[in-house]
């Protein structure tokens, strides 16, 4: 196989080119569920960052001892432990946020992004690469969540991070704050990202 991606490459790839939500279509459950306001979106992104980073580091440390059949069990155990830690931490120090995020924090356990990164990167490369991969992917995830949450919160309630940004005359598009709005916003933004990507790929072909 050709050379494995370097840590820096992993980091940069994770933000936009291999964005977990827009390009790989992983981890869609929290993307749709917690993006009706910016605060929840950023909290969720922070939680996923912590779990992904810790899981990648631990997996990378024990990568030479993993037998193929056992690795899924080990990944699951690691991720479930860190999610429990994050959940208790949020319940202790950010109680109202923990209540409004509800069951979506424990659902990080079955978030495909973390298992995919452990499988693709952490179980094959060293700790530093795994860590930069985790940070890159988490930043991509945060970017994706923030973009959707921004649109939904501004259009749906006229507020951004709880502060009113649109004039009072704006009739709130309440549908944006409800489930259909999540699907529609994400679908439209995904179409836009696909369009930009295809234009970029065309330019590369013309250049090369």
């Amino acid at each position, binding site marked *: 196989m050709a050379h494995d991606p370097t840590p820096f490459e992993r980091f940069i790839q994770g933000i936009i080119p291999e964005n977990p939500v827009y390009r790989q*279509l*992983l981890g*869609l*459950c929290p993307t*749709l*569920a917690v993006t009706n306001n910016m605060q929840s979106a950023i909290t969720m992104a922070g939680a996923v960052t912590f779990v992904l980073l810790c899981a990648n580091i631990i997996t990378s440390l024990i990568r030479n001892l993993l037998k193929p059949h056992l690795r*899924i*069990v080990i990944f*699951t*155990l690691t991720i*479930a*432990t860190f*999610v*429990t830690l994050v*959940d*208790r931490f949020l319940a202790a120090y950010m109680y109202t946020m923990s209540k409004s995020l509800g*069951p979506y924090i*424990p*659902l990080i*356990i*079955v978030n*495909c992004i973390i*298992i995919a990164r452990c499988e693709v990167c952490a179980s094959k490369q060293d700790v530093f690469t795994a860590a930069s991969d985790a940070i890159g992917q988490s930043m991509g995830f945060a970017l994706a969540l923030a973009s959707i949450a921004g649109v939904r919160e501004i259009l749906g309630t006229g507020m951004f991070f709880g502060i009113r940004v649109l004039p009072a005359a704006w009739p709130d598009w309440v*549908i944006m704050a*409800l*489930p*259909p*709005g*999540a*699907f*529609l916003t*994400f*679908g*439209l933004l*995904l*179409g*836009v990202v*696909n*369009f930009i990507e*295809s234009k970029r790929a065309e330019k590369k072909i013309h250049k090369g």
Partner: protein
Amino acid sequence: MNYIADIFLIAISATLINNFVLYYFVGICPFIGVSKNVSMAVGMGCAVTFVMTIAAFLSWTITKFILIPGAPVSSFIAGIFLPAEQAAHIDLTILSYIVYIFAISSSVQFVEMYVRKFFPALYKSFGVFLPLITTNCAILFACLTIMSHVAGVDNPADAWDLAKSLILAIFGGVGFTIAIVIMAGIREELDFCDIPKAFQGAAITLIVAGILAMAFMGFTGVDSGLGNMIKTSDTTAVNAIPVETNHQQIKV
């Protein structure tokens, strides 16, 4: 009578009103990935329902008998090492997420073995999707809902029993199947439409899902209306039982 009404309302709510896919956003990955034709969608829906029921059974039993404070098994084992006072309050709910995910993995393994042994053709057509059900958010979500109704209630008398938990799991799976089959039917028709290149695939599926979610929003309030209709309002005399639970004397 009110018990049957409760069960009926839980079933209706899980299937139509608080549909797992279109309201709670769980199970989106197979929803977008597997819904390309109706027969595969039906198969996926049935598999998820089956696994969800087994996982719900396991999680309710483990939560009720091992995890919550005062549960029989944990009190018994703790009673060997600790004085009885302390043993009765052992609270193991911190382990619930780990326990649930392993219960789900085992259910999926069990179902996989069963299907491979008795329905080999079905097993072949499923391919890689059967093990993937482990990472299906819907099943863990069902377990978490059951946990919140067993361990997270103020009054232990309000906790859900096994029947209510299984009904939630079965009808949550039915709701998931309905949503994924409708989506598969629509996508089969979309194949004949002229969709812009950027929107083909996941993007148009999501937009269609948004419109579907809007349609399902029409069911809101059906359960409260039905509830008022079915539940017999009682005008017999009040018989109060002050149940003395936590007496907290707290200065605020």
